[in-house]
């Protein structure tokens, strides 16, 4: 670091896709970001399983399949944009610097890729959804993430509201 130059703000990688677990992670990320004066990098992953969601359909013609593909792409895109915008607005309200990445693939792979490429100071994510709570099944492979991650992982407990003292 050159004398007189301001140190670059640390980057917090937030894994968030709108689930209750991710909302808890978001609250935790705000607490940490405020304490560290960090900026937030929001990674939203559209899980790869959507590519196989036409399953073994064989009766439909190409037009119907294309219509379904287009429709699915549109609703998944709209949902993702809605999530990104909502988190961006909340970050702005908290006075935190914010940047986002939208990717399609396996969540664990993409998180590790993002850790490697963006070199964040820590990764904040929600704890897995308890059994019986409805939601899309695309869980992060926690053992693999813990083994392969080169940065600290901050795991928000299920239902964390951000009002509990942390620092």
């Amino acid at each position, binding site marked *: 670091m050159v004398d007189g130059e301001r140190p670059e703000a640390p980057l917090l990688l937030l894994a968030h896709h709108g689930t209750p677990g991710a909302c808890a992670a978001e609250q935790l990320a705000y607490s940490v970001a405020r304490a560290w004066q960090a900026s937030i990098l929001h990674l939203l992953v559209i899980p790869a399983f959507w590519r*196989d969601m*036409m*399953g*073994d359909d064989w009766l*439909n013609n190409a037009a119907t399949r294309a219509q379904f593909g287009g429709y699915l792409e549109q609703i998944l895109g709209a949902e993702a944009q809605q999530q990104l915008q909502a988190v961006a607005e909340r970050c702005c309200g908290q006075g935190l610097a914010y940047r986002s990445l939208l990717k399609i693939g396996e969540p664990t792979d993409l998180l590790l890729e993002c850790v490697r490429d963006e070199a964040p100071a820590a990764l904040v994510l929600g704890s897995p959804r308890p059994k019986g709570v409805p939601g899309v099944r695309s869980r992060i492979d926690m053992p693999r993430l813990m083994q392969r991650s080169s940065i600290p992982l901050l795991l928000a407990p299920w239902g964390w509201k951000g009002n509990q003292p942390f620092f």
Partner: protein
Amino acid sequence: MIYTHKSPALLLMGLLILLWGGLNRLGSVDDLQAYLQPSAYKDHIAVKEKWEAELRVATEQAKANNQAAPSLKKPLSKFDKEKEFQSQLCTIFGGSFTLIGLFTLFWRPKPGNVDYLISTVPGVAFIASIAFVVRWGLDPMFANWGKAVKDAGMLSWDFAKIFNLNYVVLGILAGIFVVNVIRVPAWAANGVRLSRLFLKSGVILLGTLYSAAELAQLGMLSVILIAIFVLGSVGIVLIMGRRMQAGNSMTGVLSAGMGVCGVSATVAASPVVQAKASEIAYTIGTILAWGVMCMFIFPTIGHLFEMTPVQFGAWAGTGILNSAQVAGAALAYDPEGVETLKVAEIFNITRVLFLPIIVLWLATWYVKNEENATKVDIGHVLISKFPLFVLGFILLFIMSSLGFFAPADHYQGKFFSGDKVKEEKLLKAKQGKLLEGVLQKMRTPEEQKALQDLIANRKLTSRDQDNILKAVAKIPDLDNAIKGILENAHKAAWHDSPVIRAYRDWIAWLFAFGLIGLGMQITGQAIKQAGGKPLVIGSVVGTLKAVGSLLVVLLFISKSV
């Protein structure tokens, strides 16, 4: 964009297939083939011994008469024919794949249709390789193991038979294994997607196998059953969805999936009822899970109830939620013929013809119940959802009815009524006596009459009698000799033209290819999405549909058409 992958995989698969064909032709794998096909090999040895004996006698006679030793042509056994068939198929497929594989290695593709078409060949070769391994290797191996385990007394039942571990089920399982464990290679992806084309081609070709009377009766039966069960399931889902406050879009997409033809109906209805992403995931996951489960359970139950092809085809065609598994279950039940598939596919066609109507109904229902729903164009829905391949099926049916492929009486069972059965194929007196000995084992007066008629006429005289005696042949404690006599009587009456026989073989192969490819599109990740209210509603409706249609079929559907 260039679709063709520069990969040696196609060339390699082609060479391996050619190698297998060559080894069979040279007789280098006879020991392995003898293990895989024990009964055909037994027949081969018997044919060989008979031929050698005849040759010896002829040679001795010629010697006694001071004549030159005669040359007696060795007749082909079942074993020889099967090896010849495998060699021929390997030469055609292996040769084509090798040539195209070599071509793609040196070819510089340009964007366009040729590039796309060539890009599908490695996937087709991939599916074909799996199909050959499964049909010629795993299928007989499992049959041998099932028998060996039973003979060794480790189990009192044949697990391969009970779980229908034949080439169809094993092929689908191989497909599921590939996609979930080793992943479909990138060079094969386009060809794997082509599996839909194989299935649709199989259905179109099936059009050649129906007589007009058969199609009319099956069509009527399917319309009645599908109308009752489709409308019933859609209605139940709509009621349950409202009671469980599932939301209009979820209820709409679920009723299409549960009611009509599973994943295909979900794909068609989702945009119309503006389903949310999670609702689509839940519904498709639930349907896939149910479909795969039913594909294994239905054939086993069918065998337990000794259902005829008509009964099982009607039950699978009505009771299984997902259309792909209807074809799978029908072939799993009757892997050596296409009689059950013929019935089940009529039900599939009826379902898909119902699809535009149901989508339209749901669209109207959704618009009525949802404030922000956009109106649908009725004409557009009806035209865009119409399954064009059904027109191909109808065309082939008309062509075959006009005698394009074989004389019309072949479809009626040419040798039921006429005196065309050769003397050597008629029942022998000794065989008649054997059959008389099992008359007391017949379970119904119809079975007794059918058997008595066979003994009296020395041949089958009607389709009904044939179907009844097919069920008789499945009586568990019946002697194998009796089963053999009944089987021969069936074969004597059912003489097909070579063209129709070839169509039957190709249809079975097309469905096997198609189902292996579709298996490669059933991912564990998609099935894992089963959950939420759709799982509850789906389980209730799926069970009601399966059990309800089983009862209706057993109580009201006659054993034949």
